[in-house]
């Protein structure tokens, strides 16, 4: 029996070996490198192998880091809020209104934006919102404005719009899955027990959809905190987020230990937030056997 288990384990190990090697090479080693760098001392165009906590002290004492970290959290929070609030009705429509035989087509349509690269989707918003962009030239040709509107681009609002669009399918799909799992007779039971459609939604549908909503929150929130492309292109460099700061330290200023310390700190903050969400999620997940 033990040998059978052993060979089974060996077989399993062989099967996961390629992705394991990939994960070690491309994820674990770079992460460990960054972690190591963050405790080393910076020298001119080199790294001095000398243990120090100075980088972390610098990060925590740096008002720029604090501002950019808070801005990143704020922007990511806003993007998450906008994305999830807009995604919920779409997921609800998909689950409750669309006929079962048409659902596959709708899901297919929702994933169409993924056919182009993330970079191009972000750049597209620059084309739409820009000084000579679609909106401005459209309004100008209609004679509504004389001078192009300059507040469309290069601000927090445009970053939020761009990221919310880019992450919409990531929010729609988990919420849709959670809604699909709801036994429809529960909604009839809610009505049968005297509640209106709206109250049934509030007391039955929404609580049962919460695991999907929390999954959507995590999936949108975590990657948007560290987003680099959108603040650069859509923010025009005027509204840098924490990823831009890391990039500057790593490459422009060439202080890799400090850049690593910023990255590790940001990761730790995101990690703590994710754990809080998971804890919340478990409360709701308890519901599902």
């Amino acid at each position, binding site marked *: 029996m033990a040998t059978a288990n052993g060979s089974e384990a060996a077989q399993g190990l062989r099967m996961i070996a390629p992705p394991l090697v990939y994960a070690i090479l491309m994820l674990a080693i770079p992460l460990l490198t960054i972690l190591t760098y963050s405790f080393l001392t910076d020298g001119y165009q080199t790294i001095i192998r000398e243990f120090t906590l100075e980088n972390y002290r610098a990060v925590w004492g740096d008002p720029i880091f604090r501002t950019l970290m808070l801005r990143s959290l704020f922007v990511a929070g806003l993007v998450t809020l906008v994305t999830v609030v807009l995604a919920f009705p779409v997921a609800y429509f998909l689950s409750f209104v669309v006929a079962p035989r048409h659902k596959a087509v709708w899901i297919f349509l929702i994933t169409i934006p993924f056919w182009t690269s993330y970079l191009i989707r972000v750049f597209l918003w620059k084309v739409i919102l820009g000084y000579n962009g679609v909106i401005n030239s459209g309004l100008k040709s209609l004679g509504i404005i004389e001078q192009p509107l300059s507040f469309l681009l290069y601000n927090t609002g445009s970053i939020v719009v761009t990221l919310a669009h880019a992450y919409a399918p990531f929010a729609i799909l988990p919420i849709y899955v959670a809604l699909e799992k709801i036994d429809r007779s*529960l909604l009839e*039971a809610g009505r*049968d027990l005297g*509640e209106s459609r709206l109250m049934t939604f509030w*007391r039955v549908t929404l609580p049962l959809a919460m695991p999907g909503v929390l999954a959507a929150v995590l999936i949108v929130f975590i990657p948007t905190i560290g987003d680099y492309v959108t603040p650069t292109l859509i923010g025009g460099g005027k509204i840098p987020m924490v990823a831009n700061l890391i990039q500057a330290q790593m490459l422009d200023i060439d202080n890799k230990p400090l850049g690593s310390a910023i990255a590790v700190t940001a990761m730790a903050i995101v990690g703590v937030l994710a754990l809080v969400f998971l804890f919340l999620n478990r409360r709701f997940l308890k519901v599902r056997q």
Partner: protein
Amino acid sequence: MNARNPMPVAREGGPARDEHGRPTPIETRRVMIECRDVHKYYGDYHALRGIDLTIREAEFFSLLGPSGCGKTTLLRTIAGFEDISSGVVLIDGKDMANVPANVRPTNMVFQSYAIFPHLTVAENVAFGLRRDPRSRAEKAAAVEEALAMVGLRGYGARAAHALSGGQRQRVALARALILKPKVLLLDEPLSALDRKMREQMQVELIKLQRQVGITFVLVTHDQEEALVMSDRIAVMFEGEIAQLSFAEELYTRPASRRVADFIGVMNFLPARVLGDTATGVRVDVPGFGEFEVPAANVSRADAGDKGPSVGFRPEAVTLLTRDAPAPDRETPGVIEEIVYYGDMSYYDVRLDGSARFDGQGHPIRISMRNVFGRDLPDLGTRTRVSWSPGSVILFR
């Protein structure tokens, strides 16, 4: 257990009583549900084809039929989950057209029980009490009382998903009954339970119905369940009510061959109608010979393309021991098959001359209670079958 002889239990509501405390006969009670010429179409599919029925106060009523007969659709139109295409549904005298499910005086026990998985047992039971003006403590007491009524005292704090099937069903019952509906609708509530649990719940439901005195409307495809539990039963086929009568009448005097076939076991034999008499109809049946079927036992509903036939229940005929005299008529035959069930056995007997009409043998099925110490007849032996014309039904 006879559903019309109530047991002495504490009562909350229910129908008017006579001076002995017995409920008044169902026919004289107030009408609780009335359907008049109810039709329901799903596109081209005609699911309900002119349903007319009245269900009365504190009655245990069953809608019985094979799957797809429209019984669940009818229940859902009463609950308000389905609109009707034409006709009228009245509950306690009020027209239910444009009355949504959440304001109807009905509550439902769903086939899946529909227990809210994100709530505790007590929260499930209290779900419908949100707008109840009573204080929090009074509501909690009402919840505990409702749980006690279904045998779940002290289960309030449990998570709903930790319950067994039978417990879920009890929670569903408590959740509906706490709202004191005028009508409780039950959609195949026992079909998910194992046999033993199902039989236990049947008895408990009967007791509960008598205790609360609420009209129960049960949907089931199980004819035995309907007979055990109901005062009256509506048998449905293809969106129509084939027969609506008391359980006993349904079993002993089925209105058509199809109903007779659906309810219990029925022997059918081809018959030749010889002529009407003042008291019944004279028939000739292979194996039984010529005899007169009493007028009350003649069904003119649907002989169909099979031609006239007679039917009788397996327990309406008996095997005679070697020399016992027959109380009425007797006819000889051979035991072709024996099916042993422990407490009783089925005997398939080919009567002499049973192939007289069509050349086919028509073995009849006879059920006999097994008595301790008495030898069972052997397979292949000749026997005598005792019967009486009064227990034979003619379908012509």
